[in-house]
């Protein structure tokens, strides 16, 4: 990423390859050789290194995000709706 964002020049080829394959890299979906190349490039390219770190943390945070709490009223409403649809009159 050494050239990205500096006066509109084209990003370096290695930076672009890393940028395009980064999610597959983080998900362990790339061949070992390509992973090694990405790691080697990121180790010597501070902007790419920062991108790898921040994207890894973003994905890590998503994976530990707790469920939104289910309100008691929504829990009761789903059962009431099902009873009403499948067992009409059961509540009467």
């Amino acid at each position, binding site marked *: 990423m050494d050239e990205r964002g500096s006066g509109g020049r084209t990003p370096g080829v290695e930076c672009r390859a890393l940028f395009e394959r*980064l999610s597959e890299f983080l998900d362990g979906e790339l061949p070992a050789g390509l992973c090694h190349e990405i790691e080697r490039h990121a180790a010597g390219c501070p902007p790419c290194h920062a991108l790898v770190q921040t994207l890894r943390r973003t994905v890590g945070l998503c994976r530990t995000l707790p469920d939104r709490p289910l309100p008691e009223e*929504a829990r009761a409403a*789903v059962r009431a*709706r099902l009873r009403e649809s499948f067992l009409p009159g059961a509540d009467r």
Partner: protein
Amino acid sequence: MDPSADRLIEEYQGRIYSFASRMCRSAEDARDVLQETFLAAFRGLQDFRGEAKMSTWLFRIAANACRKMRRRRTYEPARLLSIEDVLPAPGGQILDVADAAEGPEAATLRHELQAALEASIAELPPPYRAVLILRDIEGLSTEEVAEVLALSVPNVKSRLHRARLFVRNAMIRRLPGPPS
């Protein structure tokens, strides 16, 4: 209610509500999607052959219900993310909870990070939001996400990558920079 139906609801209602709540960005719509999902599931239960996981099947019904809800309510356009939306913002960092000391400081940081993440995910256009929630929050495999959303595997991977980059940029915008 039939005990097996009760178990099915008990097992999945939390995840379905959570997914719907993030997709619809409204507690009221999420509650409606939850009801529509289980209603459709019980009506179509005889069609469920067990080739898909129960969770995948329920998420597919819920995702369709969210799409219908979006059309009914304030229309939220399914815009495509441009390359400018996802090019890495220069600089910035995302703190890790592990960077903070244990105790109240870590709890506060965790809360701030989660709030920033929720707000960043809510900014994503719906087709990308669905992929990111299912893959990175709900933990479905790429193939399962493709099945839920009726997309090809390469399309899921492409949307996921753009969604992650977008959220990463949005997080950096929201979070304070490194201490100087």
